[in-house]
């Protein structure tokens, strides 16, 4: 019998539309009461002036293990998640070998359990070997615990395969997550196609490469009635296509990563390989459209898109450096600083996009503090100023252009299954 009392915090739980100051009692790993008296508890956490939220869920994380342990391991990624305020993460299957077998899913779950940090859910390969040719054994993978299907950062280019995936996953009520990118339009592109790429001479990635694919994916979602989640949305065109699709009732959701609302392509002027991400940092008009999409609900989810790359890989010139940015430890801070503080989102909306909605999309029983729910809680100090210091990262990699940034808002306590992890 272990009890934790969260005292005098501002409970914000979008799943129950709650926003009020109260005492919360956690007991034996579940939420016991949302109106607790100040009774005895094994541990009391004073949450005065802080937000008590259902544990944050990051539905797009690269953990890199197995295969790329120089970038990140399951243990180091899970540790970074806790520092960033996440009680659950979902890893995408761009590992080596890719996560397309029950054994590989078992491996991740086993390693995550041994790390004993946050919950780790597995998004398994949509195609066998992540080759984009034939469906993976989706039924078997669901059995093994997969919560969604994706070929990770590689777009499913074959439209028939995507159609099959959207049809087949319906039997298991699992989402297909796809990266909208038409590779024939991006080729060896390095950055957003705009004035900055024109001046710098860096190979352009046009926004249309995202839009064309997003439109195609949505059409297939609509025809099949499947459940599609667009990963890593970044362009104004895609936001508009999504908005219209949602108005028609298409079962498509979408996510954005913080770098795509916190930075523009101007950041590339210093030729910092840490700003090389895909989708690329776009121009200010796209960023504004994405923020509008976040505001009106067109973009459902904020996920980190955490893409750790060892420093020796990022130490290259722009054309050769790999894409990617570590983000687990800055996602909440950037959301607070760039979206909530300027008034684009309320805290309730932000928490919805960082917890309740990702849980719903992945079909995991999280993202809520209803009585009886798992005691996964993130306590956020919304006014805490802090400085990003990549040298202190729990992540194994530090490829991050936010080093030295001053952010306001940080997780101060993270509780997973009734156990205090931060």
């Amino acid at each position: 019998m272990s009890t934790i009392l969260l005292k005098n915090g501002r409970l914000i739980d979008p799943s129950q539309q709650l926003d009020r100051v109260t005492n919360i009692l956690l007991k034996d790993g579940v939420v016991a009461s949302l109106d607790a008296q100040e009774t005895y508890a094994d541990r009391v956490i004073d949450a005065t002036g802080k937000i008590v939220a259902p544990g944050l869920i990051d539905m797009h994380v690269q953990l890199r293990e197995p295969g790329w342990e120089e970038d990140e391991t399951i243990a180091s990624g899970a540790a970074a998640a806790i520092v960033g305020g996440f009680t659950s993460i979902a890893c995408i299957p761009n590992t080596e070998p890719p996560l397309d077998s029950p054994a590989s899913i078992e491996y991740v779950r086993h390693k995550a359990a041994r790390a004993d940090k946050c919950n780790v859910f597995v998004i398994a390969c949509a195609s066998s070997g992540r080759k984009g040719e034939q469906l993976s054994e989706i039924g078997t993978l669901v059995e093994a615990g997969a919560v969604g299907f994706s070929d990770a950062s590689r777009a499913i280019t074959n439209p028939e395969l995507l159609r099959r995936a959207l049809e087949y996953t319906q039997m298991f009520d699992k989402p297909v997550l796809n990266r909208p990118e038409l590779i024939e339009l991006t080729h060896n592109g390095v950055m957003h196609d705009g004035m900055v790429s024109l001046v710098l001479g860096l190979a352009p990635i046009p926004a249309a490469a995202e839009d064309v694919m997003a439109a195609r994916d949505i059409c297939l979602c609509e025809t099949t009635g499947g459940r599609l989640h667009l990963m890593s949305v970044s362009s104004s065109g895609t936001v508009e296509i999504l908005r219209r699709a949602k108005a028609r009732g298409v079962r498509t959701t979408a996510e954005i990563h913080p770098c795509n609302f916190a930075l523009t392509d101007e950041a590339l002027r210093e030729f910092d390989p840490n700003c090389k991400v895909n989708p690329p940092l776009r121009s200010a008009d796209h960023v504004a459209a994405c923020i509008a999409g976040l505001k009106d609900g067109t973009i459902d989810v904020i996920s980190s898109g955490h893409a750790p790359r060892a420093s020796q890989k990022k130490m290259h010139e722009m054309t050769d450096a790999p894409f990617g940015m570590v983000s687990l430890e800055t996602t909440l801070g950037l959301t607070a600083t760039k979206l909530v503080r300027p008034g684009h989102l309320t805290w309730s909306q932000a928490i919805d996009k960082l917890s309740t909605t990702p849980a719903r999309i992945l079909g995991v029983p999280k993202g809520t503090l209803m009585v009886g729910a798992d005691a996964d809680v993130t306590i956020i100090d919304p006014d805490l100023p802090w400085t990003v210091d990549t040298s202190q990262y729990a992540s194994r990699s530090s490829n991050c252009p936010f080093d030295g940034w001053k952010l306001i808002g940080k997780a101060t306590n993270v509780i997973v299954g009734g156990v205090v992890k931060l």
Partner: protein
Amino acid sequence: MIELPPELESPPVPWTRRHLLDLESLSAAEITTALDVAQSFKDATRDCKDKLPTLAGVTSVNLFFEDSTRTRTSFSLAARRLGADNIEFSASSSSVSKGETLLDTAKTIESMQIDAMVVRHRSPGAPQMLAKNLDCCVINAGDGPHEHPTQGLLDILTIRQHRGAIAGLTVALVGDIAHSRTARSNIWGLQKLGAHVIVCGPSTLVSKQWEKLGVEVSHDLDDIVARCDVLNLLRIQFERQYTRPFPSVREYALLYAMNRERMEQAKEDILIMAPGPINRGVEVTPEVADGSQSVILHQVNNGLAVRMAALYLVAKAPR
């Protein structure tokens, strides 16, 4: 051995840069200084024939990761004309082929007491990265399609020698603007000195976006040729593209090659330039390339003077 011209006895103002990475960030005064220094060297050395050992004791290295004939040769000659030691580094015969990073390669070379590094790389930003991470001076000798500042300077110097001033001239850059570092450096430099710049080529290689840099965009060479004081004919960069941006070389030449018929429409004193290497019959026909208005070989000689100036300016700049 000849005397140093008096204007070069002390490092000229206003030059404080230890790196020459682009023309975008240079002021008109800095560009003029570079041109003046190049002209002084040229005048003092019988068109860069004589030695002027003002950089004795300085060592420069050519770090070229892309093929080059004239730029590489003229940088190494320029160093020797100034009495500097110059060494060549060839990417293929080096540890780069064993997987060493650019930065490690550069740091290794730098630790051999190198004062200036002349870098060509296919990636935009490679020289900037070295400038940020090394102590020695860095000169950009072409970073992908980004910039090629000494090419821009030598083109502008050539124009200035023939026209006296840049302000008020109409200069057209014709060809593959999208992939051209020469175009970008010329645009910045020429505009800062007051020229009207036209970029001309097929719409796949010259988008309307370029207008935002202040240049005029044209897709019709016949339409602009009569207005131009200078035509700079850029090479089509076949090696940088996937789907060919125009149907055929034949059609490109029909639309954009500077030929005898178009010369008849041009001003009598038009200058025909090409940064080279030229594809004869594609962007320029042989009779125009070798004709009376062609200053292509002047450009090459000016390349030597400009590179002497570049090495001198960065090496003498205060630390």
